[in-house]
């Protein structure tokens, strides 16, 4: 199958392209986004994650390439010799603004990074579609003790599907079902996770950029109003369950582990864990006075 093509980074030769009037040389196979400085360089990205080959489905990272009839997704298009790229133009800004408005008017982006800043930068006004604009609002799915799925926050970035499927976990528990505006992430026939093949590795939570997939601990604390990111610290450590040596990041609030992630740049895990590393933290805080 050909869901995605991984660019080859064997940097045998370099290509030179012009980006906003400046010549830049990069190894062949480099994406335009990376040629521009990568994530955080000023080009907004939403469906592009640290560990997943992007589906380039959100279209917020579009740039103009001379000679191309349409804009191109910088997160995925590879640099070519002699390309002339503009990262800002009337067309580029318009496309970004509209993507932000389309998502902002249909999806709950309250937990998505940078949205307020980008809306301001591109003049996006999600409110202009009116109160009757269709949305993907729906109840949170809570069907197990480990994590919840709040698809009202889902931008369909495909990252959880790819993390669960061929790019990492190889479990294929969830896929996109339906089509068009009704397309959504789903198990078969929308069965609850405990009836699916889910192994609760939480690798889908790790890649979700919108907070649609969330630790149950975090969800419950948010509901209770006790979730306080500003009062949280993170500690990197190594999972003690087996000999693989997966890197863990423990998120701690009030001396209690509230969730676990894994550094995306870890050469061992690439952000992935199994159920033990991801959710098996309770024993570490079964304090004597509580047992």
């Amino acid at each position, binding site marked *: 199958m050909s869901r995605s093509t991984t660019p080859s980074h064997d940097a045998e030769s370099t290509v030179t392209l012009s980006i906003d009037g400046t010549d830049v040389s990069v190894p062949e196979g480099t994406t335009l986004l990376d040629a521009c400085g990568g994530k955080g360089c000023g080009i907004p990205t939403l469906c592009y994650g640290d560990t997943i080959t992007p589906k380039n489905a959100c279209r917020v990272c579009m740039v103009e390439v001379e000679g191309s009839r349409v804009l191109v997704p910088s997160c995925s298009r590879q640099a070519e010799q002699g390309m002339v790229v503009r990262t800002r133009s009337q067309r580029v800004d318009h*496309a970004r603004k509209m993507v932000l408005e389309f998502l902002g008017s249909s999806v709950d982006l309250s937990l998505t990074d940078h949205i307020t800043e980008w809306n301001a930068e591109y003049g996006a006004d999600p409110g202009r579609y009116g109160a009757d604009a269709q949305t993907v609002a729906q109840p949170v799915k809570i069907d197990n003790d480990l994590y919840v799925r709040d698809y009202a926050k889902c931008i369909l970035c495909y990252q959880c599907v790819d993390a669960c499927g061929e790019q990492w976990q190889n479990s294929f528990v969830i896929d996109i079902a339906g089509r068009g505006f009704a*397309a959504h992430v789903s198990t078969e026939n929308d069965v609850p996770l405990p009836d699916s093949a889910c192994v609760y590795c939480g690798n889908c939570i790790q890649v979700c950029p919108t907070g649609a997939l969330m630790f149950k601990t975090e969800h419950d604390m948010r509901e209770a109003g006790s979730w306080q990111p500003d009062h949280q610290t993170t500690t990197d450590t190594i999972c003690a369950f087996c000999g693989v040596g997966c890197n863990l990041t423990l998120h701690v609030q009030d001396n209690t582990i509230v969730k676990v992630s894994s550094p995306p740049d870890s050469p061992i895990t690439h952000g992935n864990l199994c159920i033990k590393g991801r959710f098996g933290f309770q024993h570490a805080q079964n304090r004597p006075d509580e047992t």
Partner: protein
Amino acid sequence: MDLKTRGEPPSADELAAVDAVLGAAPDRDLHDVTGGHSLRNRRHLLLPALHAVNDRVGWISQRAIDYIAERLDASPAEIYGVASFYALFSLTERPAHQVHVCVDLACRANGGPAEGDLPAGAHASPCLGACERAPAAFVIDAGATPSQAVAGHVTAVQVRQWSDGDGPDPEAAPAAAVPQAGDRSLVLLARVGRGDPLDLDGYIADGGFRALAKARELGPVGVIAAVDASGLTGRGGAAFPTGRKWEAVRSQPATPHYLVCNADESEPGTFKDRVLIENDPYALIEAMTIAALATDCAYGYIYLRGEYPRAFATLLHALTTSRDRGLLGGETGFDIAVVKGAGAYICGEETAIFNSIEGYRGEPRNKPPFPFEVGLFGQPTVVNNVETLINIPSIVLDGRPANRRLFCLSGAVKVPGVYETELGLTLGELIELAGGLRDGSELQAVLLGGAAGGFAGPADLDLVLDQDSTRAAGLTLGSGVVMVHDQSVDLIDQLTRIAAFFRDESCGQCVPCRVGTVRQEEAIERLAAGASTGDLDLLRDIGQAMKDASICGLGQTAHNAIETAIVRLGVFS
């Protein structure tokens, strides 16, 4: 992969349907692999397996999905994702008898129903590709020997009767869709009405397979040179030079190469490919064999839209008889399979078609890489439209210029149908060729190129219908749709339907199209209700973003017709 199913066995009917496609399950080892042409796995049998269950039972249950999952060693979630992509499949129980009534452009302009007017039990369908007989319906009876029938000139009374269980009478002969049938000057439609389309001997006696013999003499390079010299461009909508496409595939070192004939024909107002297949199936087989020879393909697929039962039966017959006669398969080194679509306009997009054939969701892929390098099953692939291919035999045989085209005339003309003309006719002349406007009709608008095309007006009757002139006028020939609307047609209703069509048919992959088509429809509905004019600006903003930032041609063209109606015809002003 951890395959987990519910362990409930399929019903006897579901089992029989799936096994008819995949073979009986081996006793223990479900992970069997059969040979077939050099494919790594059997995932490409998923779509046929889903069809088999849907045809047999009328819908696809969780038990059936689980059984297919076990047989193909694919996860139930993936299979559910694929099955839920297609409009002809149902994942909830429904009766075996189904009536799909076209609510699309030509049919509603001809007095057919809108979505909301249908009686209980009838489903609304996008354009059924039977616009010359609008309004049209498609009636299905699932079962061990399923039946499917297309009906034209359908009345409200018939829709009600059929929804209660009856079915339509058999269709008129395929040549009925070609008013010019028998005209000696025809090239592409030359054989229509001249003999029995199902008679291979008749085809051979009528000069059939002579072009293939000539192609063998010319060899791949010679054939491509002839196609190049003819100036043939793709008739599927994008007008890409066919010779260049073929050369690009021929020269790819990776093997095997694949040939895909795009017969998905779902652009509203288009029905020429169906008419070609039903009237001259052997010509398509001969053309594909020549294309395969030129581009070094050992295997070809015809991706046929699911709502074309007669074309499907015709092709199966033509393929079997050709194989029996040693013209296809075996030692010829080339064979063809037909894959039926299942109700998804997007699967006509040249990379979505690959995913659909391979058994994945019919979502378009990124380009680059282009199909000529990385196409079907990751191999170099030629994709050509049916009409493009039908041009090939006469080009190879006579070295003629590719200056003929098919047009699908529907709407307020006296004699709707497929017409073949030399390029250079004006819009007015073409309408005259179709008998002119109906008595009492005054021209209001002409939809050129389908829902992805644009509207011309009464002032455009002198427009020359070729690529350059239409492009200069900001229009397109697209797939050859010429839908003529008289004063009785509510253009705002047409625009509302166009917006609904794209909203329904968006694959949902990219934001500009998935949400843009919804926002476009909402704005059109507000405008139709006479609300604020600010919505015209909003529509322009939405259209620009869809055009610039969508992944594929669906989103990129989803605003075209609406824009031309507003700008050229002044609708909403």
